[in-house]
């Protein structure tokens, strides 16, 4: 009986992953649609406005034609919240997410981007060694499973930055690093998008946090008021730079800034930036212990 439950649940998670990957590529979340529309309405720069109009038209065309919003199907990244009482082991969940990614790629079919880093030989199915990458969060006293899929395009991922500041540099150096990174990135990451900032921890944790930050809904605010204030400040300053849509000038350089933080060593002050382009694709599934699934575009 226990074996059956495991097999069935694993299949459910696999099917959910396959669905999420394709769905996220075609149907972007409402908060992102609202942000893109709002940006189009408020942009005062002529070229910037024209670009934002085109982006909004593109979203509608993808809806009408059931086509991908952007051609880059990315690297599939999953964010998993796993309840302590959910009756499927993480090892099985990992297998299911990998198999779902592979199936979606071959069955739809989707462009496969995954290659061996040294030989550059493609795998052909968007999976590979340690790919898809999974972010885990474990939740005590809960029997559910949340899976969020974010296909991460290379244009924006190439605009990732890490700096090991020293504590004496303070918060102002963190802000300056974020500003310099985004100005330097210019039009390459397809702005306006979501800037993810990770502060604290170690080098790897800072970048991990920056990646968690870009997974949040556009209008989401960090519950820590100090962190929320930093998000707000960076958002306003970045939009004063004038980089604009596609780096061709305008008021809208970013749609939002999300900051995630961890405690750090007394002599460390790491800051990491991860960029998510305007095509900030994202889709989630809430999976219950009885195998029912609620798909959720907004989580």
């Amino acid at each position, binding site marked *: 009986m226990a074996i059956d439950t495991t097999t069935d649940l694993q299949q459910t998670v696999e099917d959910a992953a396959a669905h999420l990957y394709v769905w996220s590529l075609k149907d972007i979340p409402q908060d992102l649609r609202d942000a893109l529309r709002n940006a189009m309405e408020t942009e005062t720069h002529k070229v910037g406005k024209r670009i934002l109009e085109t982006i909004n038209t593109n979203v509608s065309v993808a809806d009408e034609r059931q086509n991908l919003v952007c051609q*880059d199907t990315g690297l599939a990244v999953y964010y998993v919240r796993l309840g302590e009482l959910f009756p499927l082991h993480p090892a099985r969940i990992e297998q299911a997410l990998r198999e779902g990614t592979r199936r979606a790629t071959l069955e739809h079919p989707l462009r496969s981007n995954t290659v061996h880093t040294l030989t550059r030989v493609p795998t052909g199915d968007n999976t590979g060694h340690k790919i898809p990458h999974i972010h885990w969060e474990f939740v005590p006293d809960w029997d559910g499973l949340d899976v969020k899929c974010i296909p991460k395009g290379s244009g924006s991922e190439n605009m990732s930055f890490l700096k090991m500041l020293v504590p004496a540099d303070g918060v102002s150096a963190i802000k300056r690093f974020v500003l310099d990174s985004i100005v330097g990135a210019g039009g390459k990451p397809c702005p306006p998008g979501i800037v993810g900032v990770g502060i604290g921890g170690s080098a790897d944790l800072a970048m991990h946090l920056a990646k968690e930050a870009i997974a949040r809904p556009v209008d989401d605010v960090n519950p820590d008021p100090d962190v929320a204030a930093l998000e707000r400040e960076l958002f306003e300053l970045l939009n004063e730079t004038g980089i604009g*849509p596609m780096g061709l000038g305008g008021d809208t350089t970013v749609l939002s800034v999300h900051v995630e933080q961890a405690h750090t060593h007394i002599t460390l002050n790491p800051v990491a930036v991860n960029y998510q382009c305007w095509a900030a694709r994202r889709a989630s599934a809430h999976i219950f212990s009885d195998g029912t699934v609620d798909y959720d575009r907004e989580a």
Partner: protein
Amino acid sequence: MHHEITFPTDEAAVREFRAGDTVTVQGHIIGIRDATQIRIFDKGVEPPMSLRGAALLHTAPNVRKLGEGRYEPMCIGTTTSARMSRFTEGLVRDHRARAIIGKGGLLPEALVPLREHGGVYLAIVGGAAALETTQIEEIEQVEWEDLMPECLWKFRVKDFGPLIVGMDTHGESLYENVQVEARKRLEETIYSRL
């Protein structure tokens, strides 16, 4: 200013364009990418289709094969141009291509061959592939299929755009202008408030 233009075209036509103008393209566009240009320039292989007067697009399209040498567009988007900057001189000087369409801009040094030999860089809205695909009426010709998807693609297009003149034949780059202005704002009004 807005320009309607049919490619292939001549040098005089693109010399009219100024950085910041918008452009809509009719006629034909040739798709190329890294591997295509490596074959032309690094391996010295003559391309089996003429690039004279052409608009070139930095792309590796997602297509469905219909039959021998025949493909249907599924999702055609545009890739980042900067890494292909070094081919600009050969494209405009030796092959007389007149426009390079991509996203993010070419490196500033590409302004020199664009000015000397008469070529422009046209910025597409990056990531807007669903729309771009509807503007491609047909894939008329495919060469070098062994490089799939980085073949030489001849697309017949209708109302392709809007494109923005990112770099013109007068030495002007909209990307550079925006960068210079952004750095000025950082220095003059932003850093002091951090």
